[in-house]
C-alpha cells in the first residue's frame, strides 16, 4: 500500500530542475511548501450520473434534509429537535435530556466511533465518501460552481483568462451563492441550539444577539471556507480520521482500487478492438478517472491516503469500459486479497464478514440496545440530597433529634407533578416538614426536609437511612436516595 506517493510536484510536470544534460546535478534545493494547485473535478463522464454518484446525491439529500429541515419540526408545541444551551436541556422529540443525562451523549459518541470502525473495516472510507459534512458541502458547493462557471474545461479556461467583466460577474455570483448557502448553514446550525423560529424572527428584524451573530457568521464562514476554498485540503492536512483509518484496513477490506493485472499495460484506443493482440491491458488511458477525482489523484497508482472513497472514478471508468465494449469493473470496490490471489468474485463478499466485522457489529448493537433500554426505563425525576454542612443534628422540642436536608427535586417531565417524600431505615423516623410538594414542568425545586427521631433511640454518629420521592399520580415515577441521619454524641 502506498500511502505517501508524491503528488503534483513541479518536477512531475516537467518544468523543474534536473532535466537531462551532461552535468545533471545530483542535489537540488526544494521548498517544503508550495501553492496548492487548483483541482477542477469533472462533474461526470457521460450523460447520466453513475451508480455510486447517484448514491452520493441520495446521501446529500438525506443528510441535508435532516440538517436543514430538522430544527423546523415541532413536537408538543415546541421545537422537536433542540439542544437548548441556555436552558441546558436537550429536546429530542418526546425525550427531554438534562445535563445529568450526559452519559447518553457518551453512548452516542461510542456508537458513532464503533460504527466508523465497522464501516471502515467493511468498505474503507464510506463515511468520507458519502456522509462526511466536508464531502457533502463540497459536493453542494461544486454543484453551485458548475451551475455558474460550467464544468471542468470551462472552469479551467475561465481561471486562465484575464479579468474581464464576465469573469468578475461569474466569480462574484459564485461567491455570493456560496456565502448565501454558508450563512443559511450557520443559521440552521445555531437553530439547533437556540429556538430557530425565534432566531428567524430576530434575524428578520436584525435583532440577533452578539453571540448568535458570532456563531452564525462563524459557521457560515467555516462552511464557505471549507467547502469553497479548502475542500480536499481539509481531508489531506486537517482530518485526523483520514490518517488513522488505515489502521482499520486489512486485506479483506473493500477498497476502491484499480485492477492492475487487468488494466496494464495501458494504451489508447486503436483501430483494432483486439487489445490483447497489441499486448495491451484494458485501461485505455483516457484519464477520466483523474479528471473526476475530487482530490486530484490517479487511482491507478494504487491505494493512496488522499482517496476519500467517493467512487467517482468507478463510475467514470465503467462508462468508458461500456463505451468500448470492455467488461466493467476495471476500477471497483474489491479487496487486496481478491486482487492478489485471484479470488472468485463471489468469495470477496463472504470474506468481508470476518470476525472483526462480526465483533464490531455485535458491540455496536449491544450498546444501542443498552442505551435504548436505559432510555425506555428512565424515570422523569431526579433527586439530589444535600445535607447542611455545619448542622449535623440538633435538639428540638419533645426531646427529639432533628436533621435537615435540602432536596434538589428535578421534574424532568413536561407536566407538573406533586411528589410525596418518605423516609425509612430507622425506628421512629418521621418527617417534620411538609411531606408533599409540587414541582412545575421541567423545573428544579429545592425542598427543605426536616426529619426527626426520638432522641433516646438514635445511636450517636451516622445512621444509614433512605429517602423515597414518588410522584403522587404515578407510583412508577419514584427515586430512592441513600443518606444518613446523625445522632448526637452523648
Amino acid at each position, binding site marked *: 500500500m502506498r500511502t505517501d506517493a508524491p503528488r503534483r510536484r513541479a518536477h512531475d510536470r516537467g518544468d523543474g530542475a534536473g532535466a537531462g544534460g551532461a552535468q545533471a546535478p545530483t542535489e*537540488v*534545493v526544494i521548498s*517544503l511548501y508550495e501553492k496548492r494547485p487548483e483541482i477542477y473535478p469533472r462533474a461526470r463522464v457521460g450523460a447520466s450520473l453513475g451508480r455510486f454518484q447517484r448514491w452520493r446525491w441520495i446521501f446529500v439529500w438525506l443528510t441535508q434534509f435532516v440538517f436543514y429541515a430538522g430544527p423546523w419540526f415541532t413536537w408538543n408545541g415546541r421545537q422537536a429537535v433542540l439542544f437548548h444551551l441556555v436552558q441546558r436541556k436537550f429536546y429530542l422529540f418526546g425525550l427531554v435530556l438534562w445535563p445529568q443525562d450526559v452519559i447518553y451523549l457518551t453512548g452516542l459518541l461510542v456508537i458513532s466511533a464503533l460504527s466508523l470502525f465497522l464501516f471502515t473495516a467493511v468498505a474503507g472510507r464510506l463515511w468520507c465518501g458519502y456522509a462526511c459534512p466536508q464531502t457533502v458541502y463540497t459536493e453542494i458547493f461544486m454543484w453551485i460552481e458548475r451551475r455558474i462557471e460550467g464544468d471542468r474545461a470551462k472552469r479551467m479556461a475561465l481561471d486562465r483568462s484575464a479579468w474581464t467583466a464576465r469573469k468578475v460577474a461569474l466569480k462574484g455570483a459564485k461567491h455570493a451563492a456560496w456565502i448565501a448557502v454558508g450563512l443559511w448553514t450557520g443559521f440552521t446550525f445555531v437553530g439547533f441550539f437556540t429556538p430557530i423560529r425565534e432566531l428567524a424572527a430576530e434575524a428578520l428584524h436584525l435583532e440577533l444577539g452578539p453571540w448568535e451573530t458570532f456563531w452564525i457568521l462563524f459557521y457560515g464562514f467555516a462552511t464557505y471556507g471549507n467547502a469553497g476554498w479548502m475542500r480536499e485540503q481539509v481531508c489531506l492536512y486537517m482530518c485526523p480520521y483520514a490518517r488513522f483509518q488505515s489502521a482499520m484496513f486489512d486485506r479483506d477490506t473493500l477498497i476502491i482500487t484499480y485492477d492492475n493485472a487487468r488494466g496494464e499495460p495501458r494504451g489508447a484506443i486503436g483501430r483494432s478492438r483486439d487489445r490483447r493482440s497489441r499486448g495491451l491491458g484494458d485501461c485505455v488511458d483516457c484519464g477520466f478517472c483523474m479528471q473526476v477525482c475530487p482530490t486530484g489523484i490517479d487511482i491507478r497508482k494504487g491505494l493512496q491516503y488522499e482517496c476519500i472513497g467517493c467512487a467517482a472514478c468507478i463510475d467514470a471508468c465503467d462508462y468508458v469500459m461500456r463505451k468500448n465494449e470492455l467488461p466493467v469493473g476495471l476500477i471497483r470496490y474489491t479487496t487486496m486479497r481478491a486482487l492478489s490471489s485471484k479470488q472468485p468474485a463471489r468469495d470477496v463478499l463472504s470474506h468481508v464478514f470476518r470476525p472483526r466485522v462480526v465483533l464490531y457489529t455485535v458491540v455496536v448493537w449491544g450498546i444501542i440496545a443498552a442505551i435504548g433500554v436505559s432510555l425506555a426505563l428512565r424515570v422523569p425525576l431526579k433527586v439530589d440530597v444535600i445535607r447542611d454542612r455545619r448542622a449535623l443534628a440538633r435538639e428540638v*422540642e419533645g426531646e427529639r433529634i432533628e436533621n*435537615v436536608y435540602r432536596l434538589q427535586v428535578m421534574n424532568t417531565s413536561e407536566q407538573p407533578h406533586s411528589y410525596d417524600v418518605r423516609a425509612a431505615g430507622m425506628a421512629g423516623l418521621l418527617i417534620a416538614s411538609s411531606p408533599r410538594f409540587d414541582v412545575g414542568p421541567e423545573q428544579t425545586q429545592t425542598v427543605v426536609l426536616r426529619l426527626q427521631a426520638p432522641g433516646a433511640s438514635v445511636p450517636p454518629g451516622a445512621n444509614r437511612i433512605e429517602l423515597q420521592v414518588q410522584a403522587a399520580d404515578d407510583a412508577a415515577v419514584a427515586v430512592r436516595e441513600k443518606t444518613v441521619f446523625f445522632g448526637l454524641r452523648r
Partner: protein
Amino acid sequence: MSDFTSGVWDYFVAIISITSIAGCAVFLKMHSKVRAKLDEQGRPQTTDHVWDEDLREYQQPMPRWWVVLFYLTVAFGLTYLLLFPGLGTRYKGVLKWTSVGQFRSEVATADARFGPMFDAFLHRDLVDVAADPRAHQIGERIFLNNCSQCHGSDARGGNGFPDLTREEKIWGGTPEAIETTITGGREATMPPLAAVVGSDDDVKDLANYVRSLSHSTHDAARASRGQPKFVICAACHGPEGKGNQQIGAPNITLAVLRYGSSVDAVVDAIQHGHHGVMPAWKDVLTPAQIHLAAAYVYSFSHPAAGAKPDAH
C-alpha cells in the same frame, strides 16, 4: 506587587520569551527549503531515510497557507506580549490589563446592574419588604449564601447557633433589632460560675432547676434544692429566666437550649461558661442586602407577612 525580588529577572523573562518566539520564525524560515538528492528520474523524491526495509519518507510539499499559519502564530505571540503584561513585572502592556482590574470592572458592572434592584427595597419599610415575594426570593439567596453556614439552610440553627424562626430572638426580634444584629454583629459572654454556685452537687441541683423551668426531664428533688441558687443566674437571665435582650442573655425557660438541652449540658454551661459571637456583616453586605436579609429573617416569625418558612 513583584513576584521577583530582583529586577534582573524581568529582563531574564523578557529576553527568553522574545528570543524564543523570534527564534521560531527564524527556524521556520531556515527549514522551509531543504537540499534533496535526485533519484534516477532526476526528481527529488524521498528524504533518503528508509525504515523497516521499505518505508521511505517522501518530500511532500505542504500547502503554503500551512506555513503562513505558523508565521501568524508568531505574530500573535508577539502582539499578545505587546498588549498584555507577559514580560516580567516591569512592562505593563499597552492595554494596562490586570486581573484585579478586570475583577473590579466586572464587580462595577454587576453593581451598576443589580444595585438599583437592591436599593429599591432599601427605602421601603422592613415589614413591607418582608411581605414582598420578590424580596423574599432575593433575601433567601442572600441568607443561603451568607447566613445558612451557621444558622442552617432552614434558619432553625443548631447546637451553638440560635433558631431564627422563633419570634423571640436573643437580641430582640423587632425589624430594627434584626437589622442592627446583622449590621454590627453581636457578642456576649456567660462567665464560668461554678465557683460562685458552690460544689459540683450544687451546680447539678441548679442545672436541674433550670431544666424544670421548661418542664423538661429533671430531678425534682435536686431542682427544689437548686432553686435558691438561681439568683446568680437571674442577674443576667432575669428572675424568671426569660433572658435580657439588652445584654443578649437568652431565655433559658425554653425546652431547647442553644448549647444543649440536657442537664449535663447545663452543668457544663455553668462550669465553663459560653462565649457567643455573631460577626458583623456591614463590610460584606451592602445596607440594601442587609435590609433584605433582615426582612427574610423577620418573615419567618411573621408568616402572614411573608411566605411559609418551609417552602423555599
